[in-house]
């Protein structure tokens, strides 16, 4: 990521010829937007996380009180504290959803890229994958309720087939339904980058592998997967960051009974505990950045793109 190129490490920008003020101007609009809407707010969040607060105002201060409150009871032994429990639950969803979307997304992309021969058909099928995104994600979530509910379609069918004599309760408002909704919502984010990577694989490499006597599985594992690494990592970053910060899906599909970090932050902001929420947000940001940092170790995304 930070491999220094000779040019940037040895020369001072203003001294080099052809580097007048124009490039700076050209970079200015985006840099301004970036600073105004990302860096400054982020800085403010960091600042506020050290402030104090009461019921209706924030009090400028520098204290670690909010961070201590977040980890209250975490190091006293015994039961897990709320924060760790919540992160564990969020990470569990993250892992499950990542794994399932990866397998499903990879399979779909593989089919699209290597089994569908005509480009026209590929485009049609690819667009088909994005159709669910034509409706809002709240609607897509709520659509599961009549299907999975106690008196829902699935239970009805199972009942009529005589497979169960009591409605299955864990279909809705459970970890199962949350994971299902996440997979339903976010598999596309895996499909798109992986499909993109696959389309760029030189088909002659596959022929060469076949000529060299590789089996289909060997080709898949030793040729296709390594060459899709960038797509897989990008898709993973999408899915993991979204799941880590989500509170709507967990709320609706979990019957509001499953904690998520986003939900805690939302509750705190609605009770005007902005400094506490800011401290939580900073910690969440740190965790997500660490995950992304770990992922980008595996592949140099900038080089690959």
């Amino acid at each position, binding site marked *: 990521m930070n491999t220094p190129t000779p040019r940037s490490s040895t020369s001072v920008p203003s001294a080099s*010829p*052809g580097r*007048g*003020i*124009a490039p700076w*101007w050209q970079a200015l609009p985006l840099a301004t937007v970036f600073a105004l809407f990302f860096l400054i707010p982020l800085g403010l969040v960091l600042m506020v996380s050290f402030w104090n607060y009461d*019921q*209706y*105002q924030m009090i400028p201060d520098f204290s670690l009180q909010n961070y201590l*409150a977040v980890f*209250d009871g975490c190091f006293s032994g015994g039961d897990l504290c*709320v924060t760790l*429990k*919540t992160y564990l*639950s969020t990470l569990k969803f993250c892992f499950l959803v990542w794994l399932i979307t990866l397998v499903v997304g990879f399979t779909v992309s593989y089919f699209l890229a290597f089994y569908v021969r005509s480009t026209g058909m590929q485009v049609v099928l690819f667009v088909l994958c994005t159709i669910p995104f034509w409706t809002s994600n709240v609607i897509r979530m709520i659509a599961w*309720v*009549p299907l999975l*509910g*106690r*008196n829902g379609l699935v239970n009805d069918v199972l009942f009529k087939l005589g497979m169960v004599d009591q409605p299955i*309760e864990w279909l*809705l*408002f459970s970890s199962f339904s949350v994971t299902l909704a996440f997979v339903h919502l976010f598999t596309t984010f895996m499909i798109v980058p992986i499909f993109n990577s696959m389309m760029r694989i030189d088909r002659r490499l596959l022929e060469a592998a076949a000529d060299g006597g590789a089996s289909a599985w060997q080709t898949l594992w030793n040729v296709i997967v390594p060459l899709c690494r960038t797509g897989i990592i990008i898709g993973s970053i999408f899915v993991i960051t979204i799941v880590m910060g989500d509170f709507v899906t967990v*709320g609706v599909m979990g*019957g*509001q*009974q499953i*904690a998520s970090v986003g*939900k*805690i932050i939302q*509750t*705190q*902001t*609605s*009770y*005007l*505990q902005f400094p*506490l929420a800011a401290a939580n947000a900073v910690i969440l940001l740190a965790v997500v950045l660490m995950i992304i940092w770990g992922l980008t170790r595996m592949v140099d995304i900038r080089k690959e793109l």
Partner: protein
Amino acid sequence: MTDSVKETTPAATSLQRRTMLKGTAGILAAGMFPAVHADEKIVLRYLGTAVNQDKEIADKFKADTGIEIQYVAVTTDDVTKRAITAPNSFDLIDSEYFSLKNIVPTGNLKGIDTKRIKNADKITTLFTTGMVAGKAVGDQGTAPKKVIYLEGEHSKKFASAPTQFMSLIPTVYNADTLGIRPDLIKRPISSWAELLNPEFKGKAAILNIPSIGIMDAAMVVEAMGIHKYKDKGNMTKAEIDLTIKTLIDAKKAGQFRSLWKDFNESVNLMASGEVVIQSMWSPAVTAVRTKGIACTFQPLKEGYRAWASGFGLPATLKGKKLDGAYEFINWFLDGWAGAYLNRQGYYSAVLDTAKSKMEAYEWAYWMEGKPATQDIKSPHGDVLAKKGEVRDGGSYETRMGGIACWNAVMDENAYMVQKWNEFVAA
């Protein structure tokens, strides 16, 4: 190439900047322009929850006075948040009384001069003295009588005795209780304790708005005989711990099918049969019933948890907009709006004026607890009750007289929210 860039850049940049400044000035001027002309026509930005922001009310008011109402609909928590963080983003606020403990100390609201409110002395005694039909009702929590009067127009303190200035002029209020599905429960329910009765394991729900949910939980804890609170609306840390522990134990035992945060969620849970007993709001019960599904807003022997909201004015409001806001409040208390709200199952602030705008049979059903002598319809024309039916909870006096506590903001609010998150995470 390099030279030409160097030569032209300063000129180009200054030119760019000048054009940009001009452009900015243009945009600003365009933004100012309508503001100057807006003086001819008053538009009031009305911040509140969607509860009584009905289009019919705004339309009728505009037809009567020519003043336009622009609704800004947000959640209960966000009304408070806006009042504190963006006090100039509205001209009229419709807030819950319990939020006042957070809003008034900021000085963002001005006292409403009761001399300018025609029906001020007719506002129901529930608000001014905490009495219904001459009898005091429960005042645990943030009862309106504790926060309705301010010491002066620009005061940040609540007055202990009536003054000329009110913090909020009441709009609607009601007494909440548990909603049940009588067709699925098949036996009478008479106590809050039933919410945590193992009989309804996996079929109960409580609302996930901490400040209200904790009050429902407190009613349950007290009904189960676990603890008697000195003031449910202002618990000590130990009491909060106990209440949350009771909830967590029930949750771990699988008592709750779901928690809900949004009005519509509660309707869906009940209508789909996922839940048979839960905390509920009166219009949600009505909504389930209009689907043709039996649902009762069950009166309970321990009493009701009441709430009330009212109109407030931002401290910076002045001139024609201020006059317009006063006109709207006066119009609201004048009867038409009150009758409209009463027909939805809420209660209005000035009962006499609302009565004059309702049919006698409507008044008898909604306010006197008498059997309907003909079909009762909502303002939208849906049939809410058939001939012969009686309203849940009976008359205004029995219902409002049965208030046990009010929605509240506690002194230990921060701690309570933290513990509530623990319950959600458990």
